[in-house]
């Protein structure tokens, strides 16, 4: 009997300590990263509650185990066996039935929390998301804007309709807590109501190839005014750009996600940088040298495998694109500006 009392007290003590320990490590109530969406609140609550139950279950098993290990240890020279106990049906039933109840409660809360997360606001703003190796593009259908940054207004539900151009990706903003795969050939939906203004990042969470690590784009939660200003700016930029060839080229580049692989600042990503691209001499993987001109750029875009730049993988990581001659000319015009 005395054993049970001691163990009981120790279990309670360890439960509290475990939970506090988790909390200090930032893994229970005060969870990081910050919670920046309405949905994350409900998720964090469930999480916190789970950590409590888990702390208790952990102690429930570990404490009696350690206790037995210390108290019922075989002494030196002791040879006889332990007490002959075969089992106890009541106990077995108890530790089958009680966990079943626990499971039902867990699942009920899980379901409820899922309901919160999926709650639909009919006023939600729709934004289209296209994922491709290795970048995201966001389209605002109401304004005809295409951007590589996601700007959303605070305290308003947005619904992202997402699809992929190639393989499976996954949309995840850790601060929002939710994640949703982006599958080619269909649209998946992501609802979020941001509640905290700030700069975040969408991080692709499904392995999608070589540069999966870098498939991160900015997600910016703006106040309503900032958001409106940004929209207005973008509309203006788009209007101006569509007037010149290089501007149109820039739009095409944004729309097709080229900068997911080509940097504009000289760093090497999946593809060669575009800084100073026009007119530079490039070595191909067959040893030949090519000076980058209009024809070569057109070929690179329409049939990337025709020539592959030295030190890049063959077959080319770059997908073949379909553009009209005019579009190609516009892209070339834009590339020429990158000095």
């Amino acid at each position, binding site marked *: 009997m005395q054993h049970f009392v001691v163990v009981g007290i120790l279990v309670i003590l360890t439960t509290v300590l475990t939970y506090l320990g988790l909390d200090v490590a930032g893994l229970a109530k005060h969870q990081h990263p910050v919670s920046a969406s309405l949905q994350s609140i409900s998720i964090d609550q469930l999480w916190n509650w789970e950590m409590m139950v888990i702390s208790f279950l952990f102690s429930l098993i570990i404490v009696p185990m350690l206790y037995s290990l210390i108290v019922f240890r075989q002494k030196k020279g002791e040879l006889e066996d*332990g007490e002959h106990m075969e089992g106890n049906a009541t106990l077995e039933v108890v530790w089958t039935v009680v966990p079943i109840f626990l499971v039902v409660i867990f699942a009920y809360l899980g379901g409820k*929390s*899922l309901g919160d997360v999926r709650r639909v606001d009919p006023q939600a703003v729709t934004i289209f998301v296209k994922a491709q190796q290795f970048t995201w593009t966001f389209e605002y259908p109401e304004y005809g804007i295409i951007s590589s940054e996601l700007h959303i207004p605070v305290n308003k539900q947005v619904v992202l309709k997402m699809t992929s151009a190639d393989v499976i990706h996954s949309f995840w903003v850790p601060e929002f807590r939710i994640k949703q795969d982006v599958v080619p050939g269909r649209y998946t939906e992501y609802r979020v109501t941001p509640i905290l203004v700030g700069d975040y990042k969408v991080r692709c969470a499904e*392995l999608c190839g070589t540069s999966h690590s870098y498939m991160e784009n900015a997600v910016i939660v703006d106040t309503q005014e900032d958001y409106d200003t940004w929209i207005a700016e973008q509309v203006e930029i788009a209007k101006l750009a569509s007037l010149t060839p290089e501007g149109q080229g820039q739009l095409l580049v944004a729309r097709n996600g080229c900068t997911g692989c080509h940097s504009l600042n000289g760093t090497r990503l999946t593809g060669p940088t575009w800084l100073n691209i026009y007119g530079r001499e490039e070595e191909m993987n067959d040893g030949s040298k090519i000076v980058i001109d209009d024809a070569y750029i057109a070929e690179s875009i329409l049939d990337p495998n025709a020539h592959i730049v030295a030190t890049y993988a063959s077959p080319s990581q770059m997908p073949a694109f379909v553009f009209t001659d005019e579009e190609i000319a516009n892209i070339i015009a834009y590339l020429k500006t990158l000095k």
Partner: protein
Amino acid sequence: MLGALFGAVSFLVGCGVTDDWIKWARGIDTSDHHEEHWHGWEKFLNVSFDHKVIGIQYTLIALLLLGVGGTFAMIFRTELAASQLQFLTTDLNLFGQTGPQLFNTLMSLHGMIMIVSILLGISGIINYAVPLLIGAADMSFPRLNAFSYWISVPAAITLVSSLFLGGFDTGWTGYPPLSARAPVGMQMFFMGVFIAGWSSILGALNVIVTALRMRAKGMTAMKMPIFVWASIATSIISMTATQFIGLAFQLVMFQRLFGMGFFDPAKGGNPVLFQHLFWFYSHPAVYVFILPGLGVISELLPVFVRKPLFGYRWVAMSSFGIALVGFVVWAHHMFTSGMNEYLRVPFMYSTLLVSVPTGVKFFSWVATMWKGRISTPTPMLFVLGGIVVFFMGGLSGPPHATVSTDLHLHDTYFVVGHFHDTIFGGFVFPFFAAIYYWFPKATGRRMNEFWGKVHFWLMTPSFFILTFGMMYVGLLGMRRRIADYDPALGLDSAHLILTIAGFAIFTSVIIFGINLFYSIKHGEKAEGNIWNSRSPEWQVPSPMAAHNYSKPLEVIGEPYDYGLKDAPYTRFIEPASAGKSKH
């Protein structure tokens, strides 16, 4: 690819496993008893039909693969020690792959090699122990058994060859469409797993038949050693579900070879279908990994606690409970995949339900330890370590299972932490326990206790640090399967600690390896019942004779009646009443 298949087949014919079948097909009589041609260590490199030799062969190849997979882990862990790319840079070009590609290949191969290594390790323990525990002379189909072992060799080679053939970057799950585009290495990966799958299917079939047909006289179902129960439960899963991963991989192979658009949306295919087929196997498979491990725990615990296994029936049945419920939970890996929304709730319930039979095991173990006479030689240390580690892994399961929390956790290091815990606790620790425990049976010598304890005390704390750290960084936003992480996350120091812990584990396993090979020749002699166990294999001197027991066994008591005097589990039937005896 055809080359790989052809190579595998000619390897098998060449090494002679199939000799008897070919004879049979030509109508030539084959004998049932094979005299071993090889002696000493050479018999482990040649075809043998003795289950003990095959068991050891399996164990050795499993350890070898553990080493290969572990080394890969150390390579990519080193890269992860700090943010930015250090040596797997984009300028690197090795085996036709740039640094990040090589990272992906190593990471994916680490996952798959480890899993194949587990499957082989399981076959190793089961092959060695099950016939001994049930008092049989061998498995039911010794030739099939040898065949299952020998095809795993080309499987492993094919799998590893993918590293040199352009690699692949899909993770061990190989989701299309990505896997339908990856380089040729992918094809080798699919082939290798496919062949390994056959090894596991045929092995499992053999185990079930053996356990049903070859038991000693008087060994009714409720008197079987608990490990045999676990083996049957495991085998049921591997025998059936494995076909699904085989099929899924075959479909991707055909998509790649012939342009058949099963998973290609452009051709009306469905990428999510692959995930269903894949997880229909791969979830039950995780229970394949642990059931024998938990069986080992249940088998060894009474020996070192000197008390009967608490609630034998319940523990036996819980293995089946886990196996059966395990078949209907697969979609919990797909909560975010874009499958039908409404499926998520039923799958949440079924997933959580697995906790119940698993819990029964834990409670029974604790009750077994209560008021025992516990001693802690090395195998027992690994048993205890296994329980605790697996428990951490098990408890990190429900947060995944409740859908809304999984939306955050999916594809982060939290998942990685969860499954390293479950796999280590459910398989790796018990595997080491089993090796330390049965090593004297196989060799007549025991492994060094001191170095065994060093192995344990180095590995366990490092392991806690490794997996707890993984869960920690996962919650903070560390995604899985990335070669480089955002320094802004502030995880550099945590990752450095993880890497150091990983190296500590690596070192401890090397210590184990040296201990293992050294003890074969130089270990302390141990020919008697050194663990003072009740099970039949310890009632005869070690090492075990070629055809196991010289006289047939009869079961006359309960397997785990420690604490009762003069109530043995088995006895030998004296030759007079036993008909013809085996040589």
